[in-house]
């Protein structure tokens, strides 16, 4: 087998090319996730290491096993299962038991990725599909507030969005924005580390792994929708900045919504996609039973993706032919 075989060669446009191959891309994504991983280990210690290690080990093993049974172009050596595992691990509460991670990795790799044909073929983000199925099955195991109830970081130990949802907009005053920014808030082991994820996300844009379109419009959409709701009823909703810094908004904008397979390829659909995601996230946070709507938001906009991808750049010369 040639050394080139782990690169997924697809002939038709539009694709961005820099000759790095799938494995190179995935390694750069891991590099961008690194600041948050380090911060997570610093904050949660061995718990974080345990979850990250188990998730990566299970995912890679399952990926290799699936490839052994049914060989496909989606090779284990393309590193995509490692990136997915880290993203899934970031969403886990710090006391997640090993079997929960195993089931999560199984759904993510086997059901979410392999059954649909591997990297480049799945309709929704596998890590989020897996997390949504776990959340429906074991809601109490994935309750961030309950998992962290015994710890004390000198901040209110309740998920910020949940407190605002139950007590009204004025509850945002118990949280300092510095704490929220630095990740001292109740969340999964990685999805609440706003500053480090922001750094990683900016790195991803700088090294040209993603474009600015989706993250920026995602945040604008979220901010605008939050502003409208805040202006309509300041008693019920917190200020827009609060929603930006709490929960997984930044994680979703930079790392989840921009996933290659499930996001649009052209600039205009990207702008709509990001804006839709941000606005939808705020609506789910404001009016649904789920605390942090990130998972369901991304799954919903993933499903809009094929429709948005129909908005294509004009093909030059074609309109002349049709008007003639």
């Amino acid at each position, binding site marked *: 087998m040639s050394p080139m075989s782990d690169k997924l060669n697809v002939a038709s446009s539009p694709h961005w090319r820099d000759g790095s191959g799938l494995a190179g891309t995935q390694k750069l994504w891991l590099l961008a996730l690194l600041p948050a991983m380090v911060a997570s280990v610093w904050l949660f210690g061995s718990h974080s290491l345990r979850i990250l290690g188990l998730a990566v080990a299970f995912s890679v093993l399952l990926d290799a096993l699936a490839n052994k049974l049914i060989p496909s172009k989606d090779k284990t050596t393309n590193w995509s299962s490692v990136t997915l595992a880290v993203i899934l691990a970031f969403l886990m509460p710090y006391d997640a038991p090993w079997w929960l991670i195993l089931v999560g990795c199984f759904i993510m790799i086997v059901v979410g990725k392999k*059954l649909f044909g591997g990297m480049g073929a799945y309709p929704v983000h596998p890590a989020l599909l897996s997390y949504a199925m776990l959340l429906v099955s074991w809601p109490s195991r994935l309750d961030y507030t309950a998992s962290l109830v015994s710890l004390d970081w000198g901040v209110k130990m309740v998920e910020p969005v949940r407190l605002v949802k139950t007590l009204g907009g004025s509850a945002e005053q118990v949280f300092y924005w510095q704490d929220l920014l630095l990740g001292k808030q109740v969340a999964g082991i990685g999805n609440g580390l706003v500053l480090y994820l922001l750094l990683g996300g900016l790195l991803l844009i700088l090294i040209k792994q993603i474009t600015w379109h989706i993250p920026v419009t995602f945040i604008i959409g979220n901010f605008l929708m939050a502003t409208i709701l805040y202006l309509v009823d300041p008693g019920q909703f917190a200020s827009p900045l609060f929603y930006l810094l709490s929960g997984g908004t930044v994680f979703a904008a930079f790392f989840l919504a921009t996933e290659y397979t499930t996001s649009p390829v052209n600039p205009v659909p990207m702008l709509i996609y990001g804006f839709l995601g941000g606005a939808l996230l705020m609506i789910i946070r404001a009016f649904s039973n789920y605390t942090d709507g990130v998972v369901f938001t991304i799954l919903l906009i993933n499903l809009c993706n094929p429709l948005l991808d129909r908005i294509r750049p004009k093909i030059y010369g074609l309109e002349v032919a049709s008007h003639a």
Partner: protein
Amino acid sequence: MTLKQALVHGLWEDLPPFRLVLGLCPALAVTSSAENGLGMGLAATFVLVFSNMFISVLRKVIPDKVRIGSFIVVIATLVVLVEMIMKAYFFPLSQQLGIFIPLIVVNCIILGRAEAFASRNPVLLSMADGLSVGIGFTISLAVLGSIREILGAGTWFGWQVFGASFEPFEFMVKAPGAFICLGIILGLMNAYSRMRGETFIQT
């Protein structure tokens, strides 16, 4: 088709709902437990055998233009019978299955077998066909129900399968769990058939 073929084709070659991909509504809705799946399958089998019999007997008398209506009348009569018997003797099960018992009337498998087989074949052959497709449907629903019940509730026909520390995978007893289960079984069956070089694969 010989009698022997009619008796076995519903068990693998035309196994509903995986091969025929008909009757998905009850297959997805009532298979949240093995008992419900089995009950539903047996009720459908009863209707299938007798509807095939009556329609085969009447196939020369039923005018072609109103045949669907006539089939429905025969099937509906049998379904009402099943519903009353279930209410009288299996009341808890009939409460569990609810609306899906009356809905057997519009089950595609039964209408499909009436149209495709019973209306053009002799009585004994039609009954054999109904029996084999019905048993296939019962086995399928019981297997689907078992998988979902064991994973989603940790029980099988109500017996505790795992120890007390088992936390059920509740997703499986909910509606999307049925779709995923059905899809995976369908895929595995196709993979197995392809391996054996069989030619009747559903794609």
